[in-house]
């Protein structure tokens, strides 16, 4: 539980604060190579962005609740010219940036960056990460992304408004969207930095978990949290390069007018677009090839934590540990061949759609094994918990079986969700089921050390 090289941050601060020289302070708390400090840095940075993303969502909600009515205070500051109203241009920016911030700056870095860094060495009995310097860099490479994304709010035209999926031609062609000038370019660049950071992190997590486990800590004795982190790291390492490559292609399309995603003969605002010969569906394939596994990147670590916390407070070993491990490995493997279910109505070949439908149904199986089975059975043990850290877990289970994974969702999605008008329902269900894992993670900070010691 302790790290001999660097004192615990709180203990260190109390003991050495008066006499600590600046250089030592920087090395300990700012450019630290200690996994716990880096974990906390990730945690507080992402919580800060959590507030930003939440405020953006509140503005979206304001418009939905009171359409075309002026916003009380913020409206006067930001859009007094439009009678304090949220304009359609601003609204598209709001939901685009809400999703971007929540996905790329909150959920992924808080689970992998904050909890991964803090917990992996502690829970496998390692001194620190395998590559401490790389670990430090993985945090500091997030900062260019933070800065670029912040700047993008203030450039002419505002931040990206092409949806978090950034579908071309809307995102690529200038003039198609109000923010399609600097804002979208900054968005692409920021995501490239996020990708590099995640890449560094995932290499570190995989190496640490494979190489640095304490004697006796075999792979099949790892806590489920660590299994979740491990599979997340594998997914990131293999799926992210595709997104990064696609982002570079979009960047080239935007800046030097290559035509990867722009077809011949496009007319935007009654003006022809010079580039051509590309295919908009190519972006969708590349994007979802990453962003579908990213769904698991966002949920597997939280699932692992829920498994551990429930079994800890129920005072029972996890019911069916091995099937659970196999099921998340199955989710990870199948997760690479289901991306097309985001594209059923996109215009890709319907025969391909049928194939993705079947693979999507297949991935429901490990998800169902994971959800409907292990956790409630485990809860069958004596549940002694009155501690607040345990409460989010059953609530997570409730919401996740309502919404996102496994049996309750896959089949519904595969054939017809795109044909019937439930897309906003689907989006909000997804957000509702994505929120509890994060809330669960945040709320169980205090519970975790005890849990891992138990």
């Amino acid at each position, binding site marked *: 539980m302790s790290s001999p090289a660097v004192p615990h941050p709180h203990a260190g601060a109390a003991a050495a604060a008066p006499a600590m020289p600046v250089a030592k302070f920087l090395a300990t708390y700012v450019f630290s190579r200690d996994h716990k400090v880096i974990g906390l840095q990730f945690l507080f940075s992402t919580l800060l962005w959590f507030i930003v993303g939440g405020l953006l969502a509140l503005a979206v909600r304001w418009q939905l609740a009171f359409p075309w009515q002026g916003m009380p205070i913020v409206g006067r500051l930001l859009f007094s010219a439009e009678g304090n109203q949220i304009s359609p241009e601003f609204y598209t920016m709001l939901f685009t940036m809400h999703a971007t911030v929540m996905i790329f700056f909150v959920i992924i870095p808080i689970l992998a960056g904050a909890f991964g860094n803090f917990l992996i060495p502690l829970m496998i009995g390692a001194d620190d990460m395998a590559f401490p310097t790389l670990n430090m860099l993985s945090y500091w490479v997030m900062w260019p992304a933070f800065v670029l994304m912040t700047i993008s709010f203030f450039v002419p035209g505002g931040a990206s408004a092409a949806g978090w999926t950034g579908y071309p031609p809307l995102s690529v062609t200038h003039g198609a*969207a109000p923010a399609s000038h600097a804002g979208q370019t900054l968005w692409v660049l920021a995501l490239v930095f996020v990708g590099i950071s995640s890449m560094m992190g995932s290499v570190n997590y995989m190496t640490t978990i494979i190489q640095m486990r304490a004697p006796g800590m075999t792979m099949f004795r790892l806590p489920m949290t660590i299994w979740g982190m491990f599979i997340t790291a594998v997914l990131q390492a293999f799926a992210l390069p595709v997104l990064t490559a696609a982002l570079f292609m979009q960047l080239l399309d935007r800046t030097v007018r290559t035509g990867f995603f722009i077809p011949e003969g496009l007319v935007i605002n009654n003006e022809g677009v010079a580039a051509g010969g590309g295919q908009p569906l190519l972006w969708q394939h590349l994007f979802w090839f990453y962003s579908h596994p990213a769904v698991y990147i966002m949920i597997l670590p939280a699932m692992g934590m829920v498994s551990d916390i429930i079994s800890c407070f129920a005072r029972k070993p996890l019911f069916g540990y091995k099937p659970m491990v196999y099921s998340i490995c199955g989710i990870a493997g199948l997760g690479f061949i289901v991306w097309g279910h985001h594209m059923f109505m996109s*215009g890709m070949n319907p025969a391909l759609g049928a194939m993705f*439908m079947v693979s999507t149904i297949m991935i429901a199986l490990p998800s*169902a094994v994971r959800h*409907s089975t292990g956790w409630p059975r485990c809860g069958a043990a004596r549940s002694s918990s009155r501690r607040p850290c345990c409460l989010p877990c*059953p609530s997570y289970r409730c*919401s996740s079986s309502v919404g996102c994974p496994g049996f309750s969702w896959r089949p519904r999605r595969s*054939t*017809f969700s795109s044909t019937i008008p439930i897309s906003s329902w689907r989006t909000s269900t997804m957000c509702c089921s994505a929120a509890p894992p994060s809330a669960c993670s945040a709320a169980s900070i205090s519970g975790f050390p005890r849990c891992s010691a138990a």
Partner: protein
Amino acid sequence: MNKFWCLLFLAVPVLGVAAFAWAPGAGYWLPRDISDHGWQIDHLFYFVLTLTGAVFVATELALFWFAWKYDGRTNTQPVRFTHGSHDVEVLWTLAPAATLVFIAIYQMNAWADVKMRQPDVPVLAEVTARQFEWRIRYPGADGRFDTLDDVHVVNDLHVPVDRDILITLKSQDVLHSFFLPNLRIKQDAVPGMKIPVWFRARDVGEFDLVCAELCGWGHYKMKGRLTVQSASAFEQWLAETAAAQEATQEPEVEESE
């Protein structure tokens, strides 16, 4: 666990089922289906909703019951350790697997009807999406596109009832999605592609044609109207529109290409 929390968790399945019971009567449900194939989609929806609803309620009740019964403060029995049961694990892997295989095969036909079995009829109209309107072109009296008598309308799609309708879908600028909720039809319009869309309407009336893919700031107002009418009324409308277009000596909408 505290009884209060147990009851709160019990509220999830109870309120969940209540919401589904209340929604259809309150108008928050599927729009009226006027298509020939739509019942298959709706049927699949209800089938899977029932199946997953039952699984959902069962697991939620189990969760509630375990939390309620095995309260650590009142339950004095010592903790017993179990390390799983092979039979149970095999059972609850095979049961969902069988169900999922069934669903995978069962839904293929609906998919094929909507996206793969294109009817062998001439194209009725060409719909070109652009920011933020639907431009619709009928072939006119000679039955051929790209001739002088093509009939152009904007946001006003007319189709005859009880006939296989084939539409070619194009986009001029960004991605759009051609969505007819009452016909259970949705298809993205992709620039650079010509995508066929087909359906068969059973009832006459006016229905929504909306865009279902974020296409820019005006996405929210990209709405058209679908008018399903009898064959004779359709022919009459087409002739009148063509005559009105002829009278102005120039196409009602200029081709921008």
